[in-house]
């Protein structure tokens, strides 16, 4: 049973693992309204848009660093334990990670403000979640090898770092074209946390050394905390294991999604700046905010220091002080010195903010059919308003993580093909892979917009051997600026 669970875990963390949250294909792909969620100051060539509920934005990303599923599970005849020891236990470093993220847009709507056409207003709701598990290298070695042959080696508890959450987000944003050169935007977000767990910045170690009196001395120094909110409620329901479990779980998730969980607030900011004739720079910063966790909180702590050289009997002192329950006394002392405790203290969690920036050079001549509506914004034919036929540029992504910022650099080429199709291809370098080639397309069929974006296409030649994969797609109904 344990092995099955571990297989499932390995599958979740190995095959399905997702992460990075870098949406380099979608960023500034302004034919797609969902790109507004990556830069509220993006160019908005629409009169209005409405996402198809539940189908307007779906994304899933997968990433592992340091090892791929194929490294471990390839049917290559090599002893499995040997592969795990070499590729995982000894191969991975503490900054290697498994993780995942997904997002589903529940609904999204946008429209141009009739009274102030330079403003494009958008709002909606989406749910997202992620999990990031850093590889606990020292603890893995301790579990795999034990301490007997690792005398004097400190196994760091700092290697324990994990984080995950599911959150529902209500958002409202405005993109304002200040003039021909500048577009700025902001978005306010209300977070409804379904659940969250996080353990980071842990300290301490376990070490076995030659003893001062006895043969060996084991020392544990620990300052480890795991904060959770909403998790225990889910566990309680799952442990019920009754006919009502599924319904209870659905009700709980729905309640906590719709403002019945822990709440928070955040902001996105961004801009687009046109300079010279065909050059554009953009930047955005997302999820500057926090969630205050005050209900269904359960935190776990392991804090203290203890050394152990076994039971000691020293005469003549123990003639008079001897306690025949000396073993239990030893256990009680250790538990008192390094207590494992729980508490329900409320806490703030900062959102893992993200930042994008890009430089873009447009070239090729779009069709020129400019119309002036006299409303301050040149609402013009689609191709013209999109302002390019071809574009090339670079993007930068950064995300704040438990072990410092995670960055990615992307080069891209974008091409419009007629009025109906735009494609974008990217090459991205990050910690997961140096060979991430992505391809995305936005297809317009009448008022219906469909987009699909996929990363690390080279990895699709052998998916298990890939360290990263992502897929995004969605449907929108939209009207371009044409009145």
């Amino acid at each position, binding site marked *: 049973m344990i092995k099955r669970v571990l297989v499932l875990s390995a599958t979740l963390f190995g095959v399905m693992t997702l992460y990075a949250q870098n949406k380099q294909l979608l960023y500034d792909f302004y034919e797609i309204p969902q790109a507004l969620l990556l830069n509220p100051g993006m160019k908005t060539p629409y009169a209005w848009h409405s996402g198809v509920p539940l189908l307007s934005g779906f994304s899933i990303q997968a990433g592992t660093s340091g090892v791929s599923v*194929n490294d471990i599970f390839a049917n290559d005849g090599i002893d499995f334990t040997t592969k795990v020891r070499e590729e995982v236990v000894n191969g991975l470093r503490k900054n290697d990670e498994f993780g995942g993220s997904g997002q589903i847009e529940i609904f999204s709507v946008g429209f141009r403000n009739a009274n102030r056409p330079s403003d494009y207003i958008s709002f909606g709701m989406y749910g997202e979640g992620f999990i990031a598990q850093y590889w606990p290298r020292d603890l893995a070695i301790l579990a795999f090898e034990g301490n007997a042959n690792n005398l004097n080696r400190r196994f760091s508890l700092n290697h324990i770092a994990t984080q995950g959450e599911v959150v529902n987000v209500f958002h409202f944003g405005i993109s304002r074209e200040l003039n021909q050169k500048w577009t700025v935007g902001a978005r306010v977000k209300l977070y409804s946390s379904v659940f969250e767990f996080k353990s980071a910045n842990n300290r301490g170690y376990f070490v076995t050394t030659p003893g001062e009196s006895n043969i060996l001395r084991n020392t544990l120094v620990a300052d480890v905390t795991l904060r959770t909110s909403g998790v225990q409620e889910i566990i309680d329901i799952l442990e019920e294991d009754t006919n009502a479990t599924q319904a209870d779980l659905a009700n709980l998730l729905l309640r906590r999604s719709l403002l019945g969980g822990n709440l928070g607030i955040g902001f996105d900011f961004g801009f687009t700046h046109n300079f010279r004739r065909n050059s554009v720079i953009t930047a955005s910063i997302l999820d500057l905010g926090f969630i205050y966790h005050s209900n269904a909180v359960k935190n776990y702590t392991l804090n203290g220091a203890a050394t152990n050289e076994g039971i000691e009997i020293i005469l003549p002192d123990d003639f008079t002080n001897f306690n025949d329950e000396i073993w239990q006394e030893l256990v009680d002392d250790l538990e008192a010195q390094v207590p494992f405790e729980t508490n329900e203290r409320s806490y703030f969690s900062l959102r893992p903010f993200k930042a994008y920036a890009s430089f873009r050079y447009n070239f090729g001549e779009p069709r020129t059919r400019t119309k002036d509506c006299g409303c301050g914004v040149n609402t013009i034919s689609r191709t013209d308003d999109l302002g390019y036929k071809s574009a090339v540029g670079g993007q930068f992504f950064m995300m704040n993580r438990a072990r410092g910022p995670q960055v990615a650099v992307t080069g891209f080429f974008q091409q419009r093909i007629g009025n109906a199709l735009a494609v974008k291809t990217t090459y991205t370098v990050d910690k997961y892979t140096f060979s991430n080639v992505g391809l995305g397309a936005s297809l317009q069929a009448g008022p219906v917009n469909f987009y699909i974006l996929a990363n690390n296409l080279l990895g699709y030649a052998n998916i298990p051997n890939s360290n990263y994969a992502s897929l995004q797609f969605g449907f929108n109904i939209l009207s371009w600026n044409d009145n």
Partner: protein
Amino acid sequence: MRRLFPVVIIIVLFFSCAEEQDFDQFDDLNVVPEIASSIFYFESDETTINVAGTGAFYQETFTFEAFNEAFISDNVLDGVITYQLENTTSKPLGLLIEFLDAGGNVLDSESFVIQEDPAPMLERQVAYGDGGRPLDILRNTTNIRVEGQNMGDASSQSSQSDPKIILRSSGAFRLQLL
């Protein structure tokens, strides 16, 4: 050419490949760490031994449930207990270590005799499990009895600055975690 783009996307996404994987290999995973810890430490100075006279100078039984903790007893494959005995007193001494079950029955015992100072340190390793003594000894041990014997006189005093008998012990056990 333009029509090729969506075709390419579809081909890439839906006709991707996967080298053959064998997830059943997980059943072959062996995680067998070797854990080590001191077990107990016994020390008596020569004055205390002299006061007790010849023969048994100490006997005590105490609980010791490290071996029958579920984590150990369920997973232990084999192990070695190491004893180190030092004697800097002026008399030969004997120590008897007995492993007892919950009913007080002796499951195993280890007897030591060490000559008076200057005797070299006596070290003994006792294996349990494959090729050694039965693991059930460890699994069922809930108490340890220690008995010290003065096999010399009760009046002499070693010229060492702090003469004493010391027994150190530690265990190293391989556990089958997976």
